[in-house]
């Protein structure tokens, strides 16, 4: 049991040693602004606000806080 625990710990810590399978020099496309999850934060905040005041759902987006401004 002790050996098994040790092996498990080694395997878990081994995850930290994982060589990135996408090397930094292969990330040109990923660094393109078009690939950003929020290319323009200011515009995303406005759009999220427009939708959240007119829909019941909220969250798992980019905006925080704010009042209503919704009539």
């Amino acid at each position, binding site marked *: 049991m002790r050996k098994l625990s040790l092996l498990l710990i080694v395997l878990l810590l081994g995850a930290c040693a*994982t060589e990135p399978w996408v090397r930094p020099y292969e990330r040109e496309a990923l660094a393109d602004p078009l690939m950003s999850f929020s290319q323009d934060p*200011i515009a995303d905040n406005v759009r999220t606000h427009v939708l959240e005041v007119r829909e019941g759902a909220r*969250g*798992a987006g980019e905006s*925080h*806080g704010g009042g*209503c*401004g919704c*009539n």
Partner: protein
Amino acid sequence: MLALLLAAFYVAPAAAATLPEERADALYHYYSGGGVDVQGPALLVRKNFAEKYSVSASYYVDSVSGASIDVVTNASAYSENRSQFGVGFDYLYGDTLMNISYSQSDENDYEAKTMVVGLSHDFFGGMSTLAMGFSRGDDTVMRVDTMFEDTIDRFQYRLGWTQILSPTLVAAINYEGVAEEGFLNNPYRSARVLGASVLERYPRTRTSNALGLQANKYWGDRSFVTRLKYRFYDDTWGITANNIELIFSRRIGEKSEVGLGGRFYVQNGASFYSDNFDQEYLYMARDKELSDFTSVSFGGRVSYELFRDRGRFAKGKLTLMYDRIHFSYDNFTDIRSGELYEFNANVIQLFFTAWY
């Protein structure tokens, strides 16, 4: 065994976390739909220091004119202006980015104060990012025509994981939970009981869960990007919602970018919503945002690089965004016509961005 442990602690050279980019945005937004026009400016400025610190400031204004169907049918008052300002501070330590921000929103009948703290950390040579955050909101709800005043306490929890899957594919999963307690309805809006108006009554607590998935793919041979988003939502009021969005973006030449996208949202309404109650209940709502409805939107985006390396600015860009949204309600009636309510909205954003 020692060699195994040492090997386990070896961390491959990482693409370290970075501060948000230094930029300033000046934006004008315009919304028109359902009898309401909302417009105003927004500003966002960010400056980094010593490659470790970043400060940001934002300002946003909603100027509301016209009257929504709620106002028309209930003859209720509504706020004319909302202004919001915010400040934020980020600190980068190794692969960890910490941030704290504060925002305050003011209307003549609503005040909102929100404090946000967050942390993100890059793992596995920058392949994965874990992000978490907590925010605390403190709102005050008022009426302009009486001394009515009540409060809302809000707690938000966020947890997210972003994963690079290939040199052209990145995906993220985000969870957000919100717990609110206080006066959660609009103090002006009325429900209908056998056709008669009665002020709405909502539960004083609401807890929600939202799970979002997103994947961005770069199609190198055609030089365009697709973004696919999906979100599932449910809460203790009985609302469940799903939305899915797909966006195509690409460059045209060296200076222009274009994007086209569509979004579909469907919602099952709150358990205490009714278009017209058959008797009085403990909780009663007739807010169309709590009804059963769908919304479909299509939109586009065009941006053009105005200059590069001019004075102290690295780049300047002008962007125009347009969305047309159609809302279609399944159990909310326009009592002026007796028909189920629907409306179209146009959303325009025009903004200038300078990087430095």
